[in-house]
């Protein structure tokens, strides 16, 4: 079992004919994902190695029954692409694009709120359910099927921690890269809720970083609603206040959003927090033993 993506995923790729779009589409298909369509305005009727291209997501949904979208559209058009997918009735939108203006994302967030479309990202590596489906740019090779769920704000820390887990022989049910932007779709709480309900997940690793209060709110959620063990990791103990550390969202503002506060919030609700990615894997191993 898994969350978000799996054997029922029927993927349409928005921006399929771009270099990155084509590359990762084919990679995802090679992994076993059911890629049914692509969308590039003005290129309807063409195909990308057999994958039919449409002018609109609505047309792709009509013709192929796509239920999941992956977005590789450049930042100026990416927010619009998310709206298009939602209006076309797509259930899950995974937006890889980095650099979307926060104002555009705020509008997207307001529009999706209360609706049926779930957004992952933007500025995220995507979602993989090892052995089932890969929607995004997480390298399938480092993952292994198993029963640990993982959700992370950072992309490379997904890789690093999955790598450490796989090396210890611990597989994953689903790995969710939620992205590092201030305004994003699915977060820790929604992911934890899905993992809690997923019979294929025994433990959840959540990987946070400085900035915002996602981790603090997730900790409250863990204490109130999560029965499965949670292992945490927070990056950015050494980050100085007021400096953006790569991700637009990774910034300590005044006394808020520090790594120490986040780690403490998680520990206070009984989650184990590793101080290095290596320690995270050891904690998972111990919790599962």
């Amino acid at each position: 079992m898994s969350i978000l993506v799996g054997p029922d995923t029927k993927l349409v790729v928005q921006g399929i004919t771009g270099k990155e779009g084509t590359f990762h589409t084919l990679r995802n298909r090679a992994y076993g994902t059911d890629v049914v369509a692509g969308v590039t305005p003005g290129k309807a009727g063409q195909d990308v190695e057999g994958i039919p291209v449409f002018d609109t997501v609505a047309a792709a949904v009509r013709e192929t029954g796509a239920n999941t979208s992956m977005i590789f559209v450049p930042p100026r058009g990416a927010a619009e692409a998310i709206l298009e997918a939602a209006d076309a009735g797509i259930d899950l939108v995974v937006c890889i694009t980095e650099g979307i203006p926060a104002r555009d994302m705020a509008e997207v967030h307001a529009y999706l709120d209360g609706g049926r479309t779930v957004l992952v990202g933007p500025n995220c590596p995507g979602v993989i359910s090892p052995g089932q489906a890969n929607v995004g740019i997480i390298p399938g090779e480092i993952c292994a099927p198993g029963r640990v769920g993982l959700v992370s704000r950072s992309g490379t820390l997904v890789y690093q921690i999955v790598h450490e887990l796989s090396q210890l022989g611990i597989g994953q049910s689903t790995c969710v890269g939620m992205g590092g932007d201030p305004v994003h779709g699915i977060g820790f709480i929604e992911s934890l809720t899905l993992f809690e309900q997923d019979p294929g997940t025994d433990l959840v690793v959540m990987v946070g970083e400085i900035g915002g209060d996602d981790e603090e709110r997730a900790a409250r959620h863990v204490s109130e609603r999560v029965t499965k063990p949670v292992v945490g990791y927070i990056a950015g103990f050494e980050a100085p206040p007021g400096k953006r550390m790569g991700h637009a969202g990774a910034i300590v503002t005044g006394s808020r959003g520090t790594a120490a506060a986040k780690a403490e919030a998680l520990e206070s609700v009984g989650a184990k927090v590793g101080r290095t990615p290596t320690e995270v894997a050891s904690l998972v191993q111990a919790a599962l033993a």
Partner: protein
Amino acid sequence: MGKDLFARHGVPVPRGIVAEDAAAASAATGDLGGTSVVKVQVQIGGRGKGGGVVLADSPADAARAAGRMFSEGFKDMPVTRVLVEERVPIAEEFYTALLLDRSTGGYLAMMTAEGGVDIEELARTRPEALRRVPVDPLLGLRTYHVRELTGVLPPRAREGAADVVRKLFHLLREEDATLVEVNPLVLLEDGRVIALDSKVTIDDNALWRHPDLDELRAAFPIDPVEKRAKDQGLQYVKLDGDVGIIGNGAGLVMSTLDVVAQAGARAANFLDVGGGASADQMATSLEVVLSDPAVKAVLINIFGGITRCDLVAEGILEALGRVGAEVPIVVRLDGTNAEEGRRILTEANHGRIVSAATMLEAARRAAELVGGGEAA
């Protein structure tokens, strides 16, 4: 930058004249009615506390204050311009801010009748004194939002404050700001409400919509090394340790900083080389990091996902060929084609390169090389 944007959106501010010498400051003070506030023009905070803001009771007073600023500088920075502002007769001081609230994904407007306080402190200790009004990004700021906000102020300040808030919201949206803060927002004795001091943060991701803002920003000096990194699309932040850090991905780099600290050393910088990690990007990254004289060792931490470690290894060698290095460079390659990458580095037998198999090992080696202990 705040004042320029305020002027553009019609937010009332004190009249001000930029002066480049003491005589001009004196003349400006005369134009402003004989008294003024003289402020150094530098893009760093704490101006009010460090003697960077002086009340002048006469043109001669202003000339003296400006003269001292020009000759002494401010916090080790040279001062070439001062702002001579009118002295406004303040009746009361308030605070307002509009921002993109990441915890809701929407806008948040805040106001309090208590000026000059620490807003975080106020929110913690007396939340009822801070009016917080969420604003839906699709609806925008409505009259009832404004009414709710200004309701926290004394009645005679409400209309003026409402006008300011509407203009600030327009600025927030139209300029792609993520924060517009006015502290203090003041009620003058004549009943006008104006923004006395302000802070505006613009969303970097939206700068393409605002080429004019890029220009405004370019007018303020930033660290030349940071500028170079930025021009190359690299995320670089100067820190105060001695281990230069290069990694791919913001989270991994932050994590590397932490692990180095646990190993007993301190990072000299944050540098995210991004997804590709081509030879070119690696060369620029190395140049940027090595240009910092504090750096005694460099740690390159790459997790190959999409990035292939063999190509990264070749990139590092090519970069070192172009850049040269006086300090040891610890390289950790993991993930896709890591073994191949390590083999390439081993075979190259470069005198400065120290290979490490894991992130933890790399951090410990780097710490040893700069003489740090083994704390982790």
